[in-house]
């Protein structure tokens, strides 16, 4: 039930009338370089995808909307409304009337077609650079089942995003999070999973016991989280497809929490508290063998591995306040990297390896920020009563985080923001939600 059975096939279209143009020829005008920070979004047109089978009209229209919303939602693209169109393609194979698209200042044109046979769905698309008058990349076709129609739209949008920005996309991805309900002094919490845009929300656990801070495995098949199911904080491992879960046998201690996967998904890095002291440990899921990574009388928690698996960033209050430190993945002497005003916590290493996102608490405000992995070039992206727990999009360009409003009726919601601090927006979760963990692009 939780697994949407979808077999996605990725195949270049056989170009019938239009030969694929070499990509290099297009890299002039139709290009967004994200690191420069985009002020003016790139205008694109996406005429409704053609229904190539009877009865596919609705699903074709729905998929077109997903593509448009994904692209517009980045803040890097702006959709030109259909009411401005001078003409629309008669069929997927029709030659493109470039002057009609140039006249309305569309820089990118996306055309597509949808066919449904039983529960089988195929979606194909082409991307055109309107000003050079050529196709950008080859046409692509995706095949799956109708139940996974939103994923097909995300796949198209990921391909478009990737061709124009030169970066991989992040739309066909999921987020695991904590769904919260009830009054502030008696909150019920359960794990939820959803598409990156808040669609297809489902619960992974019931709300019978407290759950904290889930983390996706590197390939998105499993989730680690802190559970109070046994009466005390322990680490659970949950299989996303079957929703089966088991408690991990950690090192002896009063409490175990803050679990993360190793890069190969075969080990857990986490914190254990004993006698009031919290340190970081690693346990191999296969052999069950343990190793201790920190040994200090202070609090060491919230570990995050670098993408090459060689280093761990974590938080420690050994200096007297919460600060960020980096150490070798096998333990060893940590090096402090945060030196600004205030306290730093919940660090997460970017999947690109270039940045560390964190929560900063200073002068009564909370911020989500990013810094280089040596602590330089700190940049605060948000500010509010309570922002915390950032998580990276699979391409390292966008963060989701928890924003909590104050007071007795306050509560947490999930927001996203890009790493330039632009495009701040709430992710719809149908109620209070916290601690997002953004999974990988789906295969």
């Amino acid at each position: 039930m939780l697994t949407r059975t979808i077999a996605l096939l990725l195949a270049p279209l056989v170009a019938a009338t239009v030969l694929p143009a070499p990509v290099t020829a297009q890299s002039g005008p139709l290009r967004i370089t994200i690191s420069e920070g985009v002020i003016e979004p790139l205008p694109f047109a996406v005429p409704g995808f053609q229904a190539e089978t009877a009865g596919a009209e609705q699903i074709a229209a729905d998929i077109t909307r997903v593509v448009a919303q994904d692209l517009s939602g980045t803040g890097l693209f702006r959709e030109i409304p259909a009411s401005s169109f001078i003409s629309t393609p008669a069929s997927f194979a029709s030659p493109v009337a470039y002057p009609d698209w140039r006249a309305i200042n569309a820089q990118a044109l996306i055309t597509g077609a949808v066919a449904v046979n039983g529960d089988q769905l195929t979606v194909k698309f082409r991307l055109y650079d309107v000003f050079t008058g050529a196709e950008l990349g080859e046409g692509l076709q995706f095949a799956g089942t109708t139940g996974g129609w939103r994923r097909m739209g995300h796949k198209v949008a990921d391909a478009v995003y990737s061709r124009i920005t030169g970066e991989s996309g992040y739309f066909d991805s999921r987020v695991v999070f904590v769904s919260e309900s009830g009054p502030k002094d008696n909150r019920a919490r359960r794990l939820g999973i959803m598409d990156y845009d808040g669609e297809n929300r489902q619960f992974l656990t019931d709300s019978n016991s407290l759950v904290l801070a889930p983390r996706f495995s590197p390939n998105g098949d499993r989730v680690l989280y802190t559970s109070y199911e046994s009466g005390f904080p322990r680490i659970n491992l949950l299989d996303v497809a079957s929703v089966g879960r088991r408690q991990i046998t950690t090192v002896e201690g009063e409490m175990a929490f803050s679990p993360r996967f190793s890069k190969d998904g075969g080990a857990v890095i986490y914190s254990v508290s004993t006698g009031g002291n919290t340190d970081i440990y690693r346990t191999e899921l296969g052999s069950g063998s343990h190793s201790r990574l920190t040994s200090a009388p202070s609090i060491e928690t919230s570990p995050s591995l670098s993408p090459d698996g060689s280093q761990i960033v974590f938080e420690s209050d050994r200096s007297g306040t919460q600060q960020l430190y980096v150490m070798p993945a096998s333990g060893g002497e940590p090096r402090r990297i945060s030196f600004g005003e205030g306290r730093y916590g919940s660090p997460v290493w970017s999947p690109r390896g270039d940045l560390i996102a964190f929560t900063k608490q200073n002068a009564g405000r909370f911020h989500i920020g990013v810094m280089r992995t040596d602590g330089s070039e700190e940049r605060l992206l948000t500010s509010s009563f309570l922002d915390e727990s950032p998580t990276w999009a699979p391409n390292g360009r966008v963060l989701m985080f928890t924003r909590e409003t104050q007071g007795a009726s306050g509560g947490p919601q999930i927001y996203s923001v890009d790493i330039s601090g632009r495009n701040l927006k709430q992710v719809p979760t149908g109620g209070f939600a916290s601690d997002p963990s953004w999974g990988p692009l789906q295969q």
Partner: protein
Amino acid sequence: MNKYLTASILVGALALSACTRPDRFGGGAGAGADGMGAGAGMGAGFDQSAIGQGGLGAGNPNSPEYFAQSIGDRVLFAVDQSTLSSEAMATLDGQAQWLMTNTDYLAVIEGHADEQGTREYNVALGARRANAAREYLISRGVPASRLRTISYGKERPVATCSDPSCYAQNRRAVTVIAAGALS
């Protein structure tokens, strides 16, 4: 047989009181679901099958209600601190005395933090606070084996406003008396 019955009644009474005192045994939703919070919590290491004092009610100085209301079941902490104030020590002195008189009871010390901190750090901070209370009770003669600790971080506030008066109430260690006996 009778013993088991008494035990289940007492645990039931404690679970009931948890409904009106959300911080106890992990709060309403958590408590109900763990199959009676207190039971599940204590089950992890303690033998619940025996019970001593039969009398219930705040009027009975040997009752858990008396402990909570008259001795004081909680101590408060300064921002980001786990140091016991002299007031906290006085409360814990009373708790230690009660626990040494009522030797059939166990205690779980719950550490809590206010909302002004990150989630996982606050779990660790709550653990530090619970441990500070536990160590003090041990120093006053309570056997370590009768005292467990748990941290709820900032997840179980008793005061819900977002200002210093509420934060002060939430930065706490609460000693929760539970039915049970040393194995």
